[in-house]
């Protein structure tokens, strides 16, 4: 268990490609940080720099109270779970778990005890004598987890560990990993491109784009007050609707309360309502382009006159009274509006 301090980390590849630019992050002991962003945003590179699998171009990285910039991965006291698990195919599950301990010169009796303890925690005791080939995807995932936690490292590093599992198993493992992490209170860095994973697992969320941090905050902070247009569009599904100020002024109704200079207004699909509001800050009229019932909720795509991009509305249940082509009015309260400056992409107030 340890605090991890990332200070102004840069990664420039040999060809001059900048993968990570000036990332600083202070990770508290026992905290679960999720790095999220689109592919190529530098999240995996950042994780691999922390692991020691990628050299650090500049900046300092400390784990515990040590600067570990130049240490080998094994000396950093971290454990990593890989996307494709990277289990040793010729070793049994026991051998896979024991290998790291063996290399550290742990005594046979201690290895046996620690491996069994970890196996019990992950409920893989029954498979200890099997080879990875004879395991299902979910079981392999558990073994990969076991290999990480058997050493009781200072930090866990997860590199998209659930992306090779099917949807159902992914949800189950997500919950298990989070419970385990909370129980062990081990500092964790978790990389994913799945925003649902990010929102549900993180103590704090780090949204990366183009090698730069867009926003750091608790999942609810990031969701409720996205700091940039990028974050607003990336977190939340369906994505936030973005409406240009001139269009709104010409077509809809707007409150005066918006900060000056706001020329892009974001509204989450959940915040647009079809019913009358006491004092709607925004109201737009359009026609239903497409109805997408999804069981407990439905997505309504509303095309507005003079705009190519339809607006997405999420409502509970299935709106039986609506048909495609029907004219509807959308309204939103003032506190549901996210004002942005289009030029800088930053949030205003």
């Amino acid at each position, binding site marked *: 268990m340890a605090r991890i301090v990332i200070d102004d980390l840069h990664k420039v590849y040999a060809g001059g490609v900048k993968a990570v630019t000036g990332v600083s992050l202070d990770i508290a002991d026992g905290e679960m940080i999720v790095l999220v962003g689109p592919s190529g945003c530098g999240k995996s590179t950042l994780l691999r720099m922390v692991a020691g*699998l990628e050299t650090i171009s500049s900046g300092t990285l400390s784990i515990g109270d040590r600067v570990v910039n130049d240490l080998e991965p094994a000396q950093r006291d971290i454990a990593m779970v890989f996307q494709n698990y*990277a289990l040793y195919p010729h070793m049994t599950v026991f051998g896979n778990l024991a290998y790291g301990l063996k*290399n550290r010169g742990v005594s046979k009796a201690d290895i046996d005890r620690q491996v069994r303890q970890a196996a019990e925690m992950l409920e893989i005791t029954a498979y200890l004598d099997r080879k990875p080939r004879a395991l299902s995807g979910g079981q392999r995932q558990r073994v990969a987890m076991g290999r990480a936690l058997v050493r009781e490292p200072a930090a866990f590093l997860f590199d998209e560990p659930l992306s090779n599992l099917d949807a159902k198993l992914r949800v189950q493992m997500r919950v298990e990993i989070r419970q385990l992490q909370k129980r062990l209170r081990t500092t964790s860095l978790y990389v994913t491109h799945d925003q649902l994973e990010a929102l549900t697992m993180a103590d704090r969320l780090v949204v990366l784009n183009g090698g730069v941090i867009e926003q750091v905050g608790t999942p609810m902070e990031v969701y409720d007050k996205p700091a940039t247009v990028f974050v607003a569009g990336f977190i939340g599904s369906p994505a936030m609707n973005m409406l240009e100020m001139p269009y709104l002024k010409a077509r809809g109704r707007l409150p005066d309360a918006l900060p000056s200079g706001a020329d892009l207004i974001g509204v989450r699909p959940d915040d647009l309502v079809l019913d009358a509001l006491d004092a709607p800050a925004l109201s737009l009229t359009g026609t239903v382009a497409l109805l997408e019932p999804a069981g407990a909720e439905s997505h309504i795509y509303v095309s507005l006159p003079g705009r190519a991009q339809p607006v997405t509305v999420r409502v509970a249940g299935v709106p039986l009274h609506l048909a495609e082509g029907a004219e509807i009015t959308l309204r939103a309260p003032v506190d549901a509006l996210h004002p942005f400056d289009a030029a800088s992409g930053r949030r205003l107030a």
Partner: protein
Amino acid sequence: MVENDRWGTLLAHVILILGVFVVVFPVYVAIIASTQESGTFLRGVMPLLPGSYGWENYRTVILEGRSNAGAPPIGLMLWNSFVMAMMIAVGKIAISLLSAFAIVYFRFPFRIFFFWIIFITLMLPVEVRIVPTFQVVASLGMLNTYAGLSIPLIASATATFLFRQFFMTVPEEMLEAARVDGAGPMKFFKDILLPLSITNIAAMFVIMFIYGWNQYLWPLLITTDDGYYTIVMGIQRMVTGGDSEPLWHLIMATVVMAALPPILVILFMQRLFVKGLTETEK
């Protein structure tokens, strides 16, 4: 169409049977000939049924030999061939594994250059560089030694390439997981790469053992001491050496004996061998 098909099948089978006949018949003749008495061949008629001297001929070849006819007991020659083939197979595999490991996993200066140097050796088999190689071996005083028999044949690119191809299919994460697990380069090689390559090594061993066993020109050139004769060149000496007519019944018995070890190696390693050539263990 049906008729066409039938004739096609028939033709195919005739060709295949002919092919099998061409391969098998000489082997059959060798086995038959090794069971005849010495005088049979002088009559110029090749019998096609086994004779009754098999037991005696093989006993002669293995235990007594006919030194005056250029045919010492074959035990020593078989042993020499075995030592040479083993040294070549094991040496080649060891060197190839290490060089492939270096080329795939290390970034050292002139890496590509060395890669091409190794590649070029493919174009220079022993037969091409035989004169300078002989000079070198002679100068090093390795004539009539096991080292002289095997070392010049060990340097080889084929096995290096096979292992290089295999190493490149091992996922990068495997190496990274091992690094996180505290394994240094040689530990990774020993604990992870070697066990994963075991089927490839077996396949390579079979191929290289037979390659070494069948060497003819090189041992012929550098051995003058009959304590280092190999079985393949021994057969040649039995045919041309000695003052008398070639003792075909004994030569054929020797031929059959010489063909046995490679067959045994294949039989014993067949399972691994086939696996190594057809599938890679993931």
